[in-house]
């Protein structure tokens, strides 16, 4: 599990690893931890799945992937795990979550597709629908138009202090 030192470390590293020869030593300096301990803790957190991946986090839009669609489906609850698992296997899918239905919002399965343009995204969606057997379920496609804020999950102070 995750202890107070792990939390402190994650708080400092989540804004990004410095681009310098000894980045983990630099992070260690910020949270008063030897470089070796920083590396050892990060290795363990990754093994435990508390860090899903460690690496370059790209900005899709700036790299030419300007079309982003969130697709929401209303699927039977007993099929959701199977469908979600299937959807996640497509390389162009960048997120796939179950969320609760709401009174005026009947959708429970969410996925995200990033593509270079809308036509590509719609073609990929069609491929997904056919391959996963999703054509019988109600869905909506919500393309993003403006990005007001994009930042990594920031688990800071309050979030890490006592949770």
């Amino acid at each position, binding site marked *: 599990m995750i202890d107070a030192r792990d939390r402190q470390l*994650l708080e400092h*590293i*989540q*804004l*990004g*690893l410095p*681009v*310098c*020869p*000894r*980045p*983990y*030593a630099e992070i260690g300096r910020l949270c008063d931890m030897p470089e070796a301990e920083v590396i050892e803790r*990060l290795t363990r957190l990754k093994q435990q799945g*508390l*860090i*899903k*991946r*460690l*690496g*370059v*986090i*790209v900005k*899709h839009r*700036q*790299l*030419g*992937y300007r079309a982003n669609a969130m697709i929401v489906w209303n699927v039977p609850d007993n099929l*959701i*795990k199977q469908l979600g698992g299937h*959807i*996640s296997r497509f*390389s162009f*899918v*960048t997120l*796939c*979550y*179950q*969320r*609760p239905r709401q009174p005026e*919002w009947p959708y429970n399965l*969410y996925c995200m597709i*990033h593509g270079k343009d809308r036509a590509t995204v719609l073609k990929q969606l069609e491929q997904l629908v056919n391959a996963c057997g999703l054509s019988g379920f109600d869905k909506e496609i*919500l393309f*993003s*138009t*403006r*990005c*007001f*804020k*994009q930042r*990594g*999950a*920031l*688990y*800071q102070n*309050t*979030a*890490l202090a006592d*949770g």
Partner: protein
Amino acid sequence: MLSHLHKQLLNDYQHDFPLSARPYQDIADALGVTETDVLSAFTELCDNNFISRIGPVIPPNHIGVSALVAMAVPEQQLQQVADKISAYPEVNHNYEREHQLNLWFVVIASDAEHLRAVIDSIEQETSYPAMLLPMLDDFFIDLGFKLDLNND
């Protein structure tokens, strides 16, 4: 313009960035360039806003709680309302989407109570109701995003 090295760094180091004392040197060794080349290339990628950072991706709800939130805001007020919402440190993504529910953002908080307090405060400040959509299950295995960086 992206060099061959830029492209390799963008595509090959999303998942397993080296956990060693000299990670940039290790990357340089693997790619047959110098550590200085790698450091410069990463600096360029950051400066040109092609990468948001080199860092960890933490699965939702392992540390703290998060929720997707949707709002319907009249077009002429959207920028103003979005700015108010983006100003909250607990908000990390905030997008306009083509729908009657046109503003979609993610709130991250220490616990359920903190999350509720942020939502209440946003509703009060903007005077629009927020539809709260917490995550129930995550099916996605994040292996990084394969970028096709040719022919651009």
